[in-house]
């Protein structure tokens, strides 16, 4: 993945709670075998509605999504992250997130900035007052800022996720540095395997 240091740009507020991954990218979009092209499906059940906030020209080109509590709960589909990024979002700010969604985001370099509910409300207020206001999500300093309003808030990012984002590290590469430990675990583990249960066609072997 690409390294991420600072994200700067306009923000848009999706003022709803419990936006689950089915809403972010409906299941009809999950049949694709590619990783790209999901931006068109982002929030697709809502996109036809002219009053939907992403259709508001004042927010077009926003790179930062501000969302309500429990954003990204539900299904494990990483397609939700692909869709947000393909559409152009680089960071999501919300009071809380679904666990798997947060994990998936960290693998793709979508920055998850969790702020207190009141801070998120303030941020939404600042953006709605003036949609052209620049918002900064700084991974290095773990801060969300609205420089024009002198507004800065800290967010928590675990050290490992921060390092990975800043360096653009690939998780598999990181894990394979522990190849010896994996091999040694395997040599002592008693994990039952599937060997001998199924034949070459997946039929259960008679015993």
């Amino acid at each position, binding site marked *: 993945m690409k390294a991420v240091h600072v994200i700067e740009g306009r923000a848009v507020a999706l003022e709803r709670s419990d936006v689950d991954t089915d809403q972010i990218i409906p*299941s009809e979009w999950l049949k694709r075998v590619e990783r790209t092209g999901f931006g068109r499906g982002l929030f697709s*059940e809502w996109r036809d509605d002219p009053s939907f906030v992403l259709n508001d020209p004042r927010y077009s080109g926003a790179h930062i999504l501000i969302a309500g509590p429990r954003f990204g709960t539900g*299904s494990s589909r990483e397609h939700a992250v692909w869709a947000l990024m393909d559409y152009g979002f680089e960071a999501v700010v919300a009071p809380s997130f679904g666990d798997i969604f947060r994990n998936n985001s960290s693998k793709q370099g979508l920055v998850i900035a969790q702020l207190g509910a009141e801070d998120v409300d303030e941020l939404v207020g600042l953006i709605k007052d003036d949609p052209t206001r620049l918002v900064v999500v700084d991974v290095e300093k773990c801060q969300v800022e609205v420089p024009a309003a002198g507004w800065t808030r800290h967010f928590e990012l675990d050290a490992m996720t921060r390092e990975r984002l800043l360096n653009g590290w690939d998780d598999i590469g990181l894990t394979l540095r522990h190849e010896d430990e994996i091999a040694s675990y395997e040599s002592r583990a008693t994990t039952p395997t*599937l060997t001998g249960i199924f034949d070459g066609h997946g*039929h259960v072997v008679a015993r």
Partner: protein
Amino acid sequence: MAGRTLYEKIWDEHLVAAPDGESPLLYIDLHLVHEVTSPQAFDGLRLGGRRVRRPDLTLATADHNVPTDPISVPVTDPISKRQLEALEENCGEFGITVFPRGHENQGIVHVIGPELGVTQPGMTIVCGDSHTSTHGAFAALAFGIGTSEVEHVLATQTLPQQRAKTMAVVVDGTTPAGVSAKDIILAIVAKLGTGGGAGYVVEYRGQAIRDLSMEGRMTLCNMSIEAGARAGLVATDETTIDYLRGRPGVPTGDDFERAAQRWRGFVSDDDAAFDTTVTLDATQLVPFITWGTNPAQVVALDARVPDPSNFTDPDAASTTERSLSYMGLTPGTPIKEIPVDVVFIGSCTNSRIEDLRAAAAVARGHRVASSVRALVVPGSHRVKSQAEAEGLDEVFLGAGFEWREPGCSMCLGMNPDQLTPGQRSASTSNRNFEGRQGRGGRTHLVSPAVAAATAILGRFASPDEVNQ
């Protein structure tokens, strides 16, 4: 030393490395794969020139996408077809056992693992699907992962993981007759809320849980994610071991007894401490139903549609209003007066043999209301064959239900089984999100017995009303 919880025991046993400043690395004993969340992971492997480290710990099935028409009917949707083919090709290329559409072992991934006996106590199990928590019924640490993690497990058989906090959900006392595992978990999700379990691994404990069959425990653990918890667990007991005995994936004879002895150790120690404990009184439980657009929006089947003006929290009131407007419901309406268009009996929550028996017991000798389309979709070919051997297919067909081929089907509407806009369903699945069963569809989650009664009366109903 203080005792350990079941979660901590499994964690300790699977810790490969705990490097400074990095997430601990956990070994994965079983990786279940399906067509929707895997193609991009296999592509990633090819791009990186990597192989599947342990094809012998990896098992694949087609489920999300498959049509539930007879196998003689070809897959007409070209994108679905491509995805199903990609699964077979990828598994062929990387040496993974796969059950394609029509295969005797094919079925919903969380149904086939347990029924084949490859889900066993003490294991770590992952799958690119959030309902992997189902396997926790077997005292296995099982959780859903995203596609990048699928690729990670394929390549390394490990996952970097943060240790979770532990929550005991204790359901004390004996559940009244007519209250199923589905009702217990709906009550739990309502109590915890959609985010209440976030960051926790939940262990379900107490008399009402011990009394459940393995099928019931799977229903329970299945919906752990609906409260935000990635995994749910039930400790091993003799119910677990009896279920596993004789399954294809378990050892036989003395080897089985040795394995069972080991499995019996996968329980929390008496003096183990949980970070949080939540208690429910089983004797107070009744049949439940969801009324809204998230699985924590639950009321008793006998109750009325909630009224937003009764909520003091303005957020809750506005969320309620939004949900009611999507669901097309008027506050104060008795739930049992609401008519339904579609009844879906299936999904990894409630498509096992016991679920079908419960639904058939209600349907036997009755007719589905003429205004209702009712589908029964067994969780796997094995469930389907067993049900047919017991004559349940004839009960359903005789009552006017459709009897379909196994798959996820209308649980998420990726195949042609979908609600049309505005249609209302009684569904035994696990998610009532907006559009989950088809664009504009309105989903109410219920148990199999309530679903069957609802199909017959054409409105939400309890089984005892059917014979009145």
